[in-house]
């Protein structure tokens, strides 16, 4: 019996390790490629023959692909839009979970319907609306689009608020607290996990989105975010020679996000599970 258990455990370890290798290998490959000094897009070996830091240096010294600037752009967009988006999402989720008003049910249905249209179906129209108010190709436009999108992405957060016992609100109301007091002093302090989750999601969004950003920024390379920047590096004829620089750029974006994910793993799991449980 004991031996059999040991054997199964060994099998499980082997499978898990194999799978972990499959999952981690491509990521290790990017990291190794970012230090590779020879070859181009396609090589037939895993470990580089010569290591160098030139790929990283190139990102910050050339003027055609101003990676440093892209990085700052993305950081600004990410910080501002994460702050505003979190506020908007939480406020919407709270209103729709806790405040009873006449159009609440219809609003929820309407939001569900709106969310079912493919997001970038309206991309072109958004571009012209931004153009009409003279904002295209600017970071403000990008922030505006991300933040406006946050107003309809409240389902996970609403699910979370739904689980906070309503008796807490009621007893505070008996003590004469207004709804605003309740939101500020009771609900918000209890919502730390979901606020962290929302902020994390909103913060990582701009580092990953390249569709909207590409349409809005057009050819204004100076205002690119890292995602479109790196993506354009790979679509030009220069893709082959720039591949290692692309890998280096990828590492530079991925590292901060990975650190954030691992540091905030608990909140991330909690957010995803509360979304899954409540739907």
């Amino acid at each position: 019996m004991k031996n059999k258990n040991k054997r199964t455990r060994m099998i499980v370890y082997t499978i898990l390790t194999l799978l972990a290798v499959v999952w981690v290998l491509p990521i290790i490959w990017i990291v190794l490629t970012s230090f590779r000094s020879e070859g181009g897009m396609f090589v037939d070996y895993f470990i580089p023959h010569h290591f160098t830091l030139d790929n990283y240096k190139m990102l910050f010294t050339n003027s055609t692909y101003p990676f440093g600037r892209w990085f700052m752009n993305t950081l600004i967009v990410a910080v501002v839009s994460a702050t505003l988006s979190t506020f908007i999402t939480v406020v919407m989720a709270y209103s729709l979970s806790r405040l009873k008003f006449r159009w609440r049910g219809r609003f929820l249905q309407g939001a569900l319907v709106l969310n079912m249209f493919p997001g970038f179906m309206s991309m072109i129209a958004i571009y012209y609306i931004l153009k009409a108010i003279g904002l295209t190709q600017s970071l403000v436009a990008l922030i505006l689009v991300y933040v406006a999108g946050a107003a309809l992405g409240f389902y996970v957060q609403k699910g979370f608020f739904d689980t906070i016992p309503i008796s807490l609100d009621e007893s505070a109301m008996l003590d004469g607290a207004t709804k605003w007091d309740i939101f500020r002093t009771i609900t918000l302090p209890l919502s730390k996990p979901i606020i962290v989750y929302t902020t994390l999601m909103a913060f990582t969004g701009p580092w990953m989105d390249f569709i909207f950003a590409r349409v809005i920024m057009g050819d204004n390379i100076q205002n690119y975010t890292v995602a479109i920047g790196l993506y354009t590096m790979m679509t030009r004829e220069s893709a082959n020679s720039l591949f290692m620089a692309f890998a280096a750029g990828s590492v530079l974006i991925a590292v901060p996000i990975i650190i954030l994910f691992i540091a905030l793993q608990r909140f991330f799991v909690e957010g995803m599970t509360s979304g899954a449980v409540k739907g």
Partner: protein
Amino acid sequence: MQTQKLSVREALKVGDWRMKLSAIIMGTSQLLHGQILKGLWFLAVEISFFTWFFARGIKSLQSLITLGTHKQGFVFDKKLGINVLHQGDNSMLLLLFGVATILVVVIFFYQYWVNLKSARKLQELDLYHKSIPTLKEDLSALLDSKLHILLMSVPVAGVVAFTILPLIYMISIAFTNYDHNHLPPKNLFSWVGFENLGNVLGGDVASTFFPLLGWTIVWAIMATVTSFLFGVLLAMLINAKGIKGKKVYRTLFILTMAVPQFITLLIMNNLLNDSGMVNTMLMNWHVISHPLPFLTDGTWAKVTVIIVNMWIGIPATMLVTTGILQNLNQDQIEAAEIDGANKFQIFRDLTFPQILFVMAPSLIQQFIGNINNFNVIFLLTGGGPMNSDYYNAGDTDLLVTWLYKLTIDAADYNLASVIGILIFTLSAVFSLFAYKRVNKMNNLG
């Protein structure tokens, strides 16, 4: 005292002249009742609306019907004696402004209704000799009984401007001939009714639409089911009794979720390329003599995208399942063990149904998400390999990537818009059906 609530219509009938005048001049009732700021607001709304409406609005609505009558071109200028470029109308902007005008009119009527309702309230307060709320009281109501108005106004305005307006505009496009032959500002486009819909469902684009629809559904089912099943399996393995280093394994898999998809997918594209590392290594080891067409053969590519999608989707399911597993009812499982159930039976009859039960709503969402899964297809295969039987699409193109190509590459906005509406219909019908089933299940359980 029993207060009877008056409807707006009744209030207009039985109300005093202040109420009646409010129906013509907004804000009168509020002003005459001493709610100066509120009254001035309504008055300002009315004045600015009508000024704008007569100056711009009417023309804008007229243009919405014609979508422009003057084509861009050279017009002979008698004074100068030469041909001068005449800018002409831009159908696209006319349509956009027309839709915006309708929205503004709707918003105005909403304000008008709010004005009447507020006047009705004043009328009612008069009737029962109650005091009129002061500005201060109105403002403090915003923090309490009307908190939702304070909190939601700005976000909802954003939704109207950046979701609803563009959406109505794009839906309208589906009924025009805005394609590569009718591109503003050079050319005008006009209303064509249901012609595009007919073209997609039964015309010459149908031979592209239906195969892509079929593949989109197959893809959505396969992508959702594989990620779910293997994600659950992975979670079971990691959380199995006696396995050490659970946290390390979990972190390794989460790592892949933190790397932006466009990076991992472009890397996968590179590795699986005909001259990519996987193929060249296999060839160097003499396992194969020709590169495997992971991305260049239609059938291969379809399998490849599903497998690569597992690489992306499994960690997320694993993470959620782990959360569920940790909250499972252990008593039940122990009882089953005592009764002699083996591990597979426990999984099949106890653990798995519970996981499925909890995850059903998120599975529905994932399925919808996969119908619209742009990233995986676009970055991995770009929809390719191109299929010459299709109009502007390749073998692995989903409807949503086809939509993108129709807009960006082919400039057939009308077709793209019809596809968008059809994708919406597909998602809506499916989720309506699925949520009903899930609710039934929940009620029974």
